[in-house]
């Protein structure tokens, strides 16, 4: 007992003495001396006689007889590790209330029910570790699936890193004052948006759906439908922690939602992209740029060749850069590029010529301004931007392995580029949606489908067999 409290009167009256231990601290009676136990009644003679007698009986010294053999040495240890049931605890002061079992376990009764209970109890006890593990795993699984921990984990900046990516989807293109949207256009939009939403939710990316409808939003009307730049700038501001911004046109469809951007491209940027435009150069851009006054970094065909210096990733199709989908990274370089991408003097001279607007302007800047090249990388088109037959040729079935979607390669995404010029956007996007669903069936769906396929084949063959005699008969006739 400590002295932190002032002494207080005890229940029975009187005062406890500070510093003295409370008798209730000792549950068991303190050991008393054995001599005391034997009593002082023994006189010395009796003691001497007993001593002599015992000397006679065991001539060997006592210590040699003890601790002999493994079992006698370990007995206590072993017995101490055995489980104890209902052990008699010190607070059960009342010995009379003890049950007959004397602290040991015994079956409660002889009935069937109690035997079953015993059995179950035994099993539970025997496999308690296993059962605990199973319960923990089951609980975790349920919690994980119910609280969408997976997507939260994928989203977190320090784990999956999904929030570092922003998908910018240009919706409602050309709508607004320019044209009315029919049911097909609405259906395209619905499918495309749902596809992107599912993908973004699956991997924890941010999705920004931008209304690109043509509006009179600028005092001077020059910048109409040059809104990519403004949109990206707004997103840079809206998602201050994001690093990569992925532009997507509406007529795109992610075929393989199971590919994450990280595993598909960004974890190995150096191998998934190329710097030197001479690898594939449909525009015949002179590379490296001319000018002996330029620094070695600008004159190198691959810049500094570090993947950290890549700020813009553009795919190229058969006619040059394609901005149907591209990646741009938050950096000072990007701010500068976005700033000079649209310039009134360039626009004034070229707006009749640049029918693809930003795309042509970017090609022009890439060609003429050496500071852009060391930070631009290209990505093989089919990595992010496969074309359906009809874009870049392929109407006749001759698909180009550089541009066109190939089912057996499981391309990541298709872009129905140019489908509004004489092709059927809705039919294309519908077919690709169905294909994607079929390719990404779950195992159970595959089993079901294969069974139904077999059943159908069986039925067909059966009906053929049934028809065959008739045909034979007809032939004979």
């Amino acid at each position, binding site marked *: 007992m400590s002295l932190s409290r002032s002494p207080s009167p005890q229940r029975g009256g009187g005062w406890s003495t500070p510093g003295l231990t409370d008798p209730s601290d000792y549950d068991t009676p303190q050991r008393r001396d054995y001599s005391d136990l034997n009593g002082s009644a023994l006189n010395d003679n009796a003691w001497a006689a007993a001593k002599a007698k015992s000397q006679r009986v065991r001539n060997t010294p006592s210590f040699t007889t003890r601790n002999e053999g493994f079992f006698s040495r370990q007995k206590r240890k072993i017995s101490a590790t055995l489980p104890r049931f209902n052990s008699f605890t010190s607070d059960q002061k009342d010995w009379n209330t003890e049950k007959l079992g004397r602290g040991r376990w015994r079956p409660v009764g002889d009935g069937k029910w109690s035997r079953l209970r015993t059995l179950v109890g035994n099993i539970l006890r025997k496999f308690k570790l296993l059962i605990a593990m199973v319960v923990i795993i089951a609980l975790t699984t349920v919690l994980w699936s119910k609280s969408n921990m997976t997507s939260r984990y994928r989203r977190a900046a320090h784990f999956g890193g999904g929030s570092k990516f922003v998908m910018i989807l240009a919706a409602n293109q050309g709508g607004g004052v320019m044209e009315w949207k029919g049911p097909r256009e609405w259906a395209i939009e619905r499918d495309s948006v749902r596809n992107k939403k599912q993908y973004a939710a699956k991997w924890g990316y941010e999705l920004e759906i931008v209304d690109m409808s043509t509006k009179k939003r600028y005092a001077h009307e020059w910048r109409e439908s040059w809104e990519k730049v403004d949109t990206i700038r707004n997103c840079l501001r809206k998602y201050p922690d994001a690093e990569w911004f992925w532009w997507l046109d509406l007529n795109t469809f992610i075929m393989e939602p199971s590919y994450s951007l990280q595993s598909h491209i960004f974890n190995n940027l150096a191998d998934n992209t190329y710097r030197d435009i001479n690898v594939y150069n449909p525009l015949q851009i002179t590379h490296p740029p001319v000018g002996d006054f330029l620094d070695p970094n600008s004159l190198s065909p691959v810049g500094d060749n570090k993947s950290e210096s890549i700020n813009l990733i553009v795919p190229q199709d058969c006619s040059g850069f394609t901005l149907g989908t591209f990646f741009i990274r938050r950096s000072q370089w990007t701010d500068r590029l976005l700033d*000079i991408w649209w310039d009134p003097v360039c626009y004034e001279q070229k707006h009749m010529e640049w029918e693809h607007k930003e795309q042509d302007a970017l090609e022009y800047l890439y060609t003429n301004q050496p500071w852009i090249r060391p930070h631009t990388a290209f990505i093989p088109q089919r990595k992010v931007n496969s074309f359906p037959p009809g874009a870049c040729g392929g109407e006749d079935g001759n698909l180009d392995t550089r541009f066109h979607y190939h089912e057996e390669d499981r391309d990541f995404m298709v872009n129905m580029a140019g489908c509004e010029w004489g092709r059927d956007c809705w039919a294309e996007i519908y077919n690709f949606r169905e294909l994607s669903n079929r390719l990404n069936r779950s195992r159970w769906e595959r089993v079901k489908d294969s069974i139904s396929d077999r059943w159908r084949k069986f039925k067909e063959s059966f009906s053929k067999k049934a028809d065959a005699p008739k045909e034979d008969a007809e032939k004979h006739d």
Partner: protein
Amino acid sequence: MHFALPPRKTSQPPPYARASRKTSYFRHQQLRLVGYIVCGILTIYLLFHYVTFSDSLVESAPPGTPPVVIVTVLDEQHMSDEYITNIRANREDYAARQGYENFFTSVANYTRYTEPSPSSWTLIPALRHALTKYPYSTHFFSLSPYALIMSPSLSLEEHVLAPAKLESVMRKDVPVVPPDSVIHTFSHLKGNKVDLVMTQDTENLGHGSFILRRGEWAKFFLDTWFNPLYRTYNFQKAEGHALEHIVQWHPTILAKMALGKDNDQPQTQNALFQDGDLLVHFHGCRAAPERDCEKEMKPYYEDWQREVRRLDAPLPRRTHARNRAAFSRSWFSVLFNSIR
């Protein structure tokens, strides 16, 4: 005493057996050893990290790198040999005094890139060339061949380039292009963020002399300025107007530009040369048919020679001090003084 039974142990052993002293001592020693190892590894890691990190951030300049490079584009076709010799002498003297480097280059080196645009566009590839040739110098002082350094004892670092000095000297929230451009210079620009120091004269942003800081921004700025579509646009004052255009339309350029200060001098006067100014610029002397650059330069050149002689003479420091005061009073009015 001996009995048949050993004395009973307490039926309630203490919950945790205390380890003996000896083992705890060994444990302590082991822990200490582990601690030392961890500390050592951390130290080595941090050292390496620091070394590599600082390496990647700051390229160490080789010794003897000039802090400032003066870039002059000479036009042998339109300048007499004597004029070129004088200009070279003037700049070399200044560079030697301040520990700078001169980069003289010729219009002819770059005309194949600028044609058919006016040859004055060669200034931009020349600057890009200087950036390539002196990759470790921090500042590039572009100086028109029609300018003369009049106070060779004044160093650029002290009077403009030190961030604190620059902040006190630059003009904030004034029209970029005088007199009434709607685009104003940024009012919250920090001295260490400035990559380009320019001045205005009465009607233009003067690019007869400006200071450019090395870096990615400098390349971006020069490449943007050199856009072929600007060159073919027939700006009335060629690269001068192109410069005013990009400064007013592109905030990423404006955000890095500082305009020098004219103190409180009236607009009409600030373009005129005063004693103690850093340099004199015979602005437009070539374009105007009635003017002759070489003749205009002659008296100033003689003044400069006298100044050099005075500086090299051992004694008189008083006038020099007066000049210095004059300089810092109205320093940026200086840089671009034109004369009619």
